């Protein structure tokens, strides 16, 4: 498995299936762990960081956690490859940009990824399409059990699993969903969802998690409390209290749009499709906005012949590093991410989308 292979296929979590897939793009569960008897990353010497990387790589690869697992030495990977992994949510942006020894183990279907030496020694995640939080949690819990048979994680009776940042201490568990909320934005009711989430002490972020703006129509919502609650309760509370509420707001807003503003919304959707099918240059932000409308159109059954999977895929393949990688694989020059000028990238992106949305 090479990183170039990744651009040739789609991650499981983009299939556009799973419960509530009209609003919930994907569910993600992650656990933070640190090796017992080792300082946290900040106080590790470079040789210690290397030791942690080597040891965990061996432990994780030998644990048979999933089909077709492979390892990427992130420290040795090029800028473009690192950006590619971050765009696919297989590593965080912080992990992509760091300088110290680090790596990631990824399952063949990309639903499992285990970052070594992110903020904590181990950050493992399971990503699933639609609302499949229970499945994702069961899977990550099993992986954690399997790893715990092979290594000891820093743990205290009082504080639970010890993490570099106290905001993760205890369970080390972060559950999140990626939501598509176009109707709430169009009806100007986005604040409702944001407030509902904040009232429940949940964090709302942009598409790429920590440090990214919640702009456009895509949001990541996650729990913030990690201590003093059992894992199952955190998952359950998230599933039964907050997500249905926001889902409900979005679906009601969609109904209202169809009922009261049908022509207006159709106009937006079909203009978006027309632009995607004919534009000669597309910046990634514009693409996101247009694809969001297209996705809404499919979910409202205003558009036939294009499926959710295709749209979800285009969201990913149209990201800057993917555009560049795909271009390179087609015989273009491959170089560091900065070498392809933005307007050239916008041209390639426009051509790629045009082709994918006009071909029968």
């Amino acid at each position: 498995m090479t990183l170039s292979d990744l651009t040739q296929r789609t991650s499981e979590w983009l299939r556009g299936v799973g419960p509530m897939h009209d609003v919930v793009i994907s569910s993600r569960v992650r656990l933070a762990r640190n090796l017992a008897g080792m300082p946290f990353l900040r106080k590790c010497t470079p040789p210690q960081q290397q030791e942690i990387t080597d040891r965990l790589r061996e432990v994780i690869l030998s644990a048979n956690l999933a089909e077709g697992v492979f390892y990427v030495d992130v420290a040795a990977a090029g800028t473009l490859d690192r950006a590619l992994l971050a765009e696919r949510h297989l590593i965080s942006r912080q992990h992509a940009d760091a300088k110290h020894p680090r790596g990631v183990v990824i399952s063949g279907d990309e639903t499992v990824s285990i970052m070594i030496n992110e903020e904590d020694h181990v950050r493992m995640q399971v990503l699933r399409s639609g609302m499949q939080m229970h499945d994702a949690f069961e899977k990550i819990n099993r992986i954690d059990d399997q790893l715990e048979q092979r290594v000891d994680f820093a743990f205290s009776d009082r504080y639970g699993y010890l993490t570099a940042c106290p905001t993760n201490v205890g369970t080390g568990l972060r559950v999140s969903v990626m939501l598509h909320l176009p109707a709430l934005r169009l009806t100007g009711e986005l604040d409702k969802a944001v407030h509902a989430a904040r009232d429940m002490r949940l964090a709302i972020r942009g598409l790429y998690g920590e440090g990214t703006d919640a702009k456009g129509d895509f949001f990541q919502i996650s729990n913030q409390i990690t201590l003093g609650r059992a894992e199952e309760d955190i998952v359950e509370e998230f599933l039964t209290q907050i997500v249905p509420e926001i889902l409900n707001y979005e679906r009601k807003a969609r109904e209202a749009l169809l009922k009261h503003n049908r022509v207006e919304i159709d106009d937006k959707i079909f203009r978006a499709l027309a632009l995607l099918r004919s534009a000669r240059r597309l910046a990634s932000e514009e693409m996101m906005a247009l694809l969001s409308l297209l996705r809404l159109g499919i979910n409202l059954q205003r558009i036939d012949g294009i499926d959710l999977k295709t749209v979800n895929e285009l969201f990913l393949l149209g990201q800057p590093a993917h555009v560049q990688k795909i271009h390179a694989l087609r015989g273009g020059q491959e170089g560091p991410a900065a070498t392809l000028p933005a307007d050239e990238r916008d041209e390639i992106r426009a051509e790629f989308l045009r082709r994918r949305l006009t071909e029968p």
Partner: protein
Amino acid sequence: MMKKKCDKCDKPATIHLTEIIDGQKIEKHLCEDCAEAEGITIKANIPISQLLEDFVLQTVGEEEVSTAAVTCDVCGMTFSEFREHGQLGCPNDYEAFHEQLLPMLARAQDGNTQHVGKAPRRAGVAQQKQIAILRLRSRLKQAISAEQYERAADLRDQIKRIETAEPERASE
């Protein structure tokens, strides 16, 4: 640490305020006299623990200076270093900074300060052992930088011995 001067005069500031106005964070540092002139009165009935909790990420007079200097004797991290970067240096910091972390944790974790979730199936390296290993590792680091290789080798052996010792099994 430099003590802040009053924004209005040259006296040391003893009152520190953070106001959020239209989403803009504005910090004020005043001496008592200037604060009074500005019409700011400090309620005497706020318990100091409450004040510390509210201002734990900011500088609050002299009390904070001693807090900032609290150091973990295992990894050498100071509390002020933690506040600056938001990341701890080693598992023992949770003990070393226990007093300072507790109010922060309570605030960030909805009042919870006791783990009730999953615990490792096997006891693995017991807590005290974990700390012992950490301590040895920090000595090892020092030994290597001081080029005391014999001592380093000895420390490495000690670490290995503890790590490979039969873990105590958790009672099911």
